[in-house]
């Protein structure tokens, strides 16, 4: 297990390096025109462009450019040339908000998707199974900006049950924190619950026809124990891998719509606003951040696989 972990971590570092090269190329090498012009954004002056060229090394070799860009990204040296703010500080301000959204929503959607998926698999062929299956499809079909706006309007604005957007830090007031986040968590989870419960449902139904499930029944185990110990554990792998990707993406600011609809001012909303202003440095930083979280979460998922299924531990990388 230890050598498995070491191998996975080494692979993760390699992937992160490859992603940084790729991101650098996408932002600074591949597009037409001068990178310093794009960097300077809408409100550029010739002097600023010249300064950026020298500071980022755009007049020097590719390796120097790459090294400078990465140094700026990783040391928080990045400055928005649109409004002069420090990108690192902005991201640090947004991260707790994004984390709060991501962690709560990920727990919520996993728990509900497992419950719903298991239920609709066990009840398949009956009306209740069909209804839960239909519910999942309805969830998949509702876009976040629409559900979010409806929730905000009816539950927040008209009924007054929830605050109209915004965020309160957990350390300041845990109740207000949760109160502000209930709607965003729910809105973000609805889509994922739909997708995950469908995936889990089909994987549970496959597992239920396995011989070892018959063995478990032949041992005289209760149906609940058969489901949890023998069916569910063997059915989790597909949704665990989905979860790694989605949770990583949301952590890295991927829930742009949810953050914006509920005005959470997280990393995703920051990225969206920067894109609006053609402000390249923040977008570069958020892209790297998102890639980082996705890679890290995928490593976590690989470790989870190994915990869930001992057969995976012997495989290479």
């Amino acid at each position: 297990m230890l050598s498995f972990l070491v191998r996975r971590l080494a692979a993760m570092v390699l992937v992160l390096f490859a992603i940084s090269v790729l991101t650098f190329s996408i932002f600074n090498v591949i597009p037409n025109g001068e990178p310093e012009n794009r960097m300077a954004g809408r409100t550029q002056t010739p002097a600023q462009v010249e300064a950026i060229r020298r500071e980022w090394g755009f007049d020097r070799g590719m390796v120097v450019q790459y090294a400078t860009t990465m140094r700026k990204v990783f040391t928080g040296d990045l400055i928005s040339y649109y409004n002069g703010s420090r990108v690192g500080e902005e991201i640090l301000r947004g991260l707790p908000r994004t984390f709060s959204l991501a962690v709560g929503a990920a727990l919520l959607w996993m728990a509900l998707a497992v419950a719903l998926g298991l239920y609709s698999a066990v009840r398949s062929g009956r009306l209740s199974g069909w209804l839960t299956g239909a519910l999942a499809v309805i969830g998949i079909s509702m876009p976040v900006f629409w559900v979010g706006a409806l929730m905000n309007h009816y539950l927040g604005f008209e009924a007054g049950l929830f605050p109209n957007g915004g965020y309160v830090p957990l350390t300041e007031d845990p109740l207000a924190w949760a109160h502000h986040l209930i709607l965003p968590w729910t809105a973000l989870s609805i889509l994922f619950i739909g997708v995950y419960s469908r995936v889990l449902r089909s994987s549970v139904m496959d597992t239920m026809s396995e011989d070892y499930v018959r063995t478990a029944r032949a041992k005289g185990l209760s149906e609940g124990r058969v489901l949890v110990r023998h069916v569910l554990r063997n059915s989790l792998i597909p949704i665990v891998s989905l979860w790694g990707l989605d949770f990583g993406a949301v952590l890295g600011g991927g829930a742009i719509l949810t953050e914006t609809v509920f005005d959470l001012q997280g990393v995703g909303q920051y990225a969206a606003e920067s894109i609006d202003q053609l402000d390249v440095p923040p977008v570069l930083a958020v892209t790297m951040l998102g890639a980082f979280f996705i890679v890290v979460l995928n490593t976590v998922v690989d470790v989870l696989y190994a915990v869930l299924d001992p057969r995976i531990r012997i495989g290479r990388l």
Partner: protein
Amino acid sequence: MSSPLLRVEDLGVSFATAEGSVRAVDSVSFELRTGEVLAIVGESGAGKSACAMALMGLNRSPGACFSGAAWLGELELLAVPDAALRRVRGTDMALIPQDPLSALNPVQRAGDQVVEAMRAHERVSRRAARERARALMVSVGLPAAAFAAHPHELSGGMRQRVMIAMALSCQPRVLIADEPTTALDVTIQAQVLALLAELRERTGAGILLVTHDLGVVAALADRVAVMYAGRLVETGTVDEVFHDPQHPYTWGLLGSTPGLAGARGERLAAIAGAPPSRLGPDAGCRFRARCPHEHAACAAMPELAERVGPGHADRCWLPVDQKRLRREHGGRIGLEPRGIAA
């Protein structure tokens, strides 16, 4: 004679399909006594497994329909609700499955699966159950290290021993072994058969052995029930059925088995044709279409009756002397000889 452990009367199993109801098992009756090995033999699709699974209640589903009765002591297995049946499974009656790799949970340690079987029925501490499981696993010939191994780390024979240990965990009176050696290679087959024979001696459990392998029957069974297309066609002791088979299907089955058939170097015979469809009603004897001895009477279904002596029953209209004559004269008469495909 003691009363039987398991008494099956007129068991029928049918499954609803898109084409209609398929009768997998039809009016099957047999008894299993303490310490006895009864083999149910037949080709694939004969209904032997459906029959065994019906006793365990493992093929209950919305599309399955059961008739007749199966008594395990005072309990009628077909009539009891799932919850009551669950208490019987593993305790009074246990299953040894066909393919031990797919029958073991891949993500659970072998020992834990045995422990789980114990703790499903008995109030024992985890520690005590572990000790008992460890001892049980050693007693069926597993190394001590097998306890903490995952199924993929064990060999085929060891996996089947784990399944046997699991089946024995609550000292069942009836063991249902569904093709217990089919997925194993020949040397391991012999070991597992020896283990089953030893268990029968040691525990006195009755074993219902479902197989298509007549070699396994000869090695282990006391009595045989030959099944064809959902019905029993011949029952008797192993001696009676192997040395004085009464039903032409049994002749064919014996004739197509290496080692049991004629002299060395002789070609094995195959039974021509395929088993009939079991949708719709019967048109007489089910073996009729493949039987070289078919005659007018075969248009009606023969009864399973003791025609040669007590305990030896068959389902064939041919007069007993005719059968002997035909069997002796034709060798494996009328059964089309075919080379074995390489």
